[in-house]
């Protein structure tokens, strides 16, 4: 196990305030992700999968425990530093797509690049636009560049979201039930696309789902039950 880890969680705790008391959701979650590895995170609805992904993706902070990205402890990072890491190293795919409704597909995919580049965007806009077009082509949306989310089907919207997650070539992809809002046929397509692109680009993928079918396509499966990881089935 001397191999470097792209992501590591140590004993994560998270609870939400509910009225006077607190609702514990995660009670000591530890996990490890190697570069390029595809891992399924299984668990019933409400088991805390989203909560965990938010902590791992630095969108939220744990009450206790550590998050390590590429070997560095990032638990205590300030908001700006965490944001820089999200912009460069992490790609998100959400169940609700979370696209910007006012922008077309191409502009949605370019958004992480605009954020990451800052002022240098104006110099690089041309190249970035080419790159975004190529990725949209790779997700099968070459003919939908100028469509806004409202003009796209659910499956197409999720394809845009996948392209957006990949555009910065992150080493880590976090997908939170990416097929949860899609019919099963479309969901299967999207899942196949996500897995194919993650493997192609050698990005580690942590995929939260309650779809048992996913397990067959992943290297490992983690079960989240009662706020902890049980039965980490080793992959093939």
């Amino acid at each position, binding site marked *: 196990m001397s191999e470097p880890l792209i992501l590591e969680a140590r004993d994560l705790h998270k609870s939400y305030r509910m009225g006077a008391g607190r609702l514990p959701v995660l009670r000591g979650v530890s996990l490890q992700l190697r570069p390029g590895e595809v891992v399924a995170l299984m668990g019933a609805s409400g088991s805390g999968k989203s909560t965990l992904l938010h902590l791992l993706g630095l969108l939220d902070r744990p009450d206790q425990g550590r998050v390590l990205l590429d070997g560095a402890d990032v638990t205590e990072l300030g908001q700006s530093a965490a944001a820089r890491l999200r912009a460069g190293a992490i790609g998100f795919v959400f169940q609700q797509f979370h696209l910007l409704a*006012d922008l077309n597909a191409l502009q949605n995919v370019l958004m992480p690049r605009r954020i990451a580049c800052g002022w240098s965007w104006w110099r690089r806009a041309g190249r970035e636009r080419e790159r975004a077009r190529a990725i949209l082509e790779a997700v099968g949306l070459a003919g939908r560049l100028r469509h806004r989310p409202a003009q796209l089907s659910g499956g197409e919207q999720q394809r845009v979201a996948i392209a957006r997650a990949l555009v910065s070539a992150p080493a880590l992809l976090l997908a939170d039930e990416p097929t949860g809002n899609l019919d099963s046929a479309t969901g299967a397509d999207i899942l196949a696309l996500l897995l194919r692109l993650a493997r192609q680009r050698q990005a580690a993928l942590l995929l939260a789902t309650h779809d048992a079918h996913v397990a067959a396509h992943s290297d490992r499966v983690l079960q989240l039950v009662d706020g902890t990881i049980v039965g980490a089935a080793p992959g093939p």
Partner: protein
Amino acid sequence: MSLLHLAWTYFRRRALLTLSALGIALGVALVFTTLAVVNGFLSELERTLREFSGDVVVRPLEIGPLAAGRAEYMRALEAVDGLESATPRLNWFGLVGRRGARALSDPRSADLNGLLLVGVEPERERAAALHAELLAQPGSLILGDELAQRLGVAAGDALEVLSYRGSGRDLAPVRATFQVAGSFRTGQYEQDLDRAIVRREDLERFLGGRVPFTEIVLRGARDIAPEQLAARARMALAEAGIRGADVRTWRAQGGNLLAAVENQRGTLSVVFFAIVAVAAFQLLATLTLTVTEKRHDIGVLGALGAGPARVAGFFMVLCLVIGAAGTALGLALGLWLCRNLHVVELWIGGGERIFTPELYQFPEIPIAVDPGSVSVLVGATLAAALLFSCIPAWLAARLPIVRALHHA
């Protein structure tokens, strides 16, 4: 700034934001137009004042056999660099009576009118409005048209003028009859009411030949400032060994009137800042609403790697976009208003003119766009917009990402 595109898209697609820009545009247009009118009045005032007084007036403080004479003054002044013309004048006080009144034989009469006799050398005068060409005949006189109206005299009439010459014990009344050759109008009410122009040599003779001139009016070339011309004139006089001359710019001459208008402009600028502040304040309300409305988008931006500073910056850019669009539109509207002020005037007045030319001495509402004050207006509007964007920007920056994301 790389999020400018998103700001622009919001601006285009949200009627609320477009309306907000319209609010700013109205404020800017209002201030722009008022500024242009105030500036117009000022520059029209300047034009009429300068028409008569030239750029610089040189006045010998002592007159008499020992003082430097007209020729010496002229020799010294004509060497001044950038001088276009130097015209000697002889100004003297006189009294005239209303037409038909026995004014001059009965000094108690209320029909007496004081006036300033301006003795000019017609061939040297440059002020077209003075109609100095009417003074070709010796003994002729032209009156300011307000004065002519008050006296009830017209071209062809004879006008008796009473004055005094000498000083101290030698003070003696003099009386002469001039031939009214016409009237002039500078547009400056006071000047048109209390001035009569005669030939300098006539006036000199009238006064007994002891005072050849009381002032020399200087006009500079186009590119020379009156202050500069005055400084050069002072130097030239000093070099020629002429002492005791008062050299003043037209601005110092017409000081009181100009100061009054300038003062009004100062008061107005307070009102202007209030208008700009109100326009910017409604932007604060709009943007705060936008932050609430766009919580989901703020969450998405955060997930994609935008830190608090970036999110705050985005809302300030959005504010600048609205402010800039509003300002640009306001300037365009203001320009249109200035071009079509006569139409707007009739429209507001319900078919009646609001502007009365008789009162203001200008036939039209004078308009002059001053680039300096327009830059201040634009700068102040954008600065106010930016200032008021701080609160919504801060509100947006402190939204927790996960909570914002769930606000779809």
